[in-house]
């Protein structure tokens, strides 16, 4: 059970981190430019 949860967290992190980076970059640019 713990192994499955670890695998679940790891897989979601692998795909979630690049997405979070892309979203953060977009928001950062939007805020910077609208200021």
């Amino acid at each position, binding site marked *: 059970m713990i192994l499955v949860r670890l695998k679940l967290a790891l897989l979601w992190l*692998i795909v979630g981190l*690049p*997405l979070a980076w892309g*979203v953060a970059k*977009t928001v950062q640019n939007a805020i910077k*430019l*609208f200021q």
Partner: protein
Amino acid sequence: MSAAAPLGSAGNPSARLGLLNRARTVAPHDYNRFLVPPAALAVHLSIGQAYAFSTFNLPLTKLLGVTQSAPADWSLKAVGWTFSIAILFLGLSAAVFGRWVERAGPRKAMAVAAGCFGGGFLVSALGIHLHEIELLYLGYGVLGGCGLGIGYISPVSTLIKWFPDRPGMATGMAIMGFGGGALIAAPLSIFLMDHFKTPESNGVFESFVAMGLIYSVFMLFGAAIVRVPPGDWRPIGWTPSLTPKKLVTTANVHVDVAWKTRQFWLLWGVLCMNVTAGIGVLSQASPMIQEMFAGRVSAAAAASFVGLLSLFNMGGRFVWASASDYLGRKNTYFVFFLLGILLYALVPSIGRAGSTALFVLAFGVILSMYGGGFATIPAYLRDIFGTMHVGAIHGRLLTAWAAAGVLGPVLVSYIRDFQIHNGVPKAQAYSVTMYIMCGLLVIGLFCNLGIRAVSPELHHREGEA
């Protein structure tokens, strides 16, 4: 689910040996289904790069001149064809290879998509190195486009099978990745070009090689972790409703039958009209906000507006598709079309009132519904035609995207040019366009209203060829 079994090769012992074979991807009954969406996201986040291809447009016109275009450099118009060819081949490959994708299973399909998409970048890199634009078209356009088409449909049909209780949320999760891919690819492309540039090169060749390798690995990771549910699998505690809704079938329709039905072509119209309206605006978003609010919105602020629209586009994919599980697919599209007509009709007044915030908000909602339309359509297909060939049917329906990809931008830019040519001030040149978009959405609204359940005579029966 059981009806889908003959498409696989579970009965063929030699086929079990193949690492990519469908039979090797069948999960045990107690498999946690939330382990599967990351596989779909890995593929869609990669192929979503296509939306950010324009980041390379200008650098590709300065390959020889490096800081500015040399006479022998490619023109922007010539480079612009690359994206159009890729979208065309996305639609064509999804339509042609849809049945193969269902038969071969998601792992093989995702691996092929990885090879095509990553390989497309590498062939294009060779074209950049040799300065042969035909290789760019062949690489990113044809090969990459096939990777886009195969990679787009495969994870979607897999997730629909894992989430029969929440098909909208499942397809929303996968297709959200396609929207999110652009948010990653745009800053990644800029970072790579900055990293590789030298006084003699603007770093595009190296960036293409790097992106080809990165995306191949990421997509192959998705292929490695993807699983399909066993034939008789159901989510724990879930049983199909004994009183099925009018527009949600428990039967299946064969792809060769489905595409000849009235329902298929009405759904084609629904997708085409929804996408045409959204893609037309997306393609002209930057000049539109600058011209409608002349002197108040700079080019840089317009670029951030485009970024914000991408966020709405991505968010809408998950939110609207998930909401469609509760609202019903037909009602969700009814909202898209009705709210879309209202918002498009209001845009000229918002422009005249000079409210930038309201303008951004209106287009944010419009783009969320554009994304939502993409993400909800596979679940709509599943409701109407069942899960058996949903990937193949979805593939054929994506030709509507290819058509809209040409129709939308051409309509918006042609009408704008026509207006300006006839003396209409730039700030008002978009008003007619908005009303024409309303007209397109009215057609979509009627297509949606005309959708009924498929006649039981057309349902697939076990053992039928």
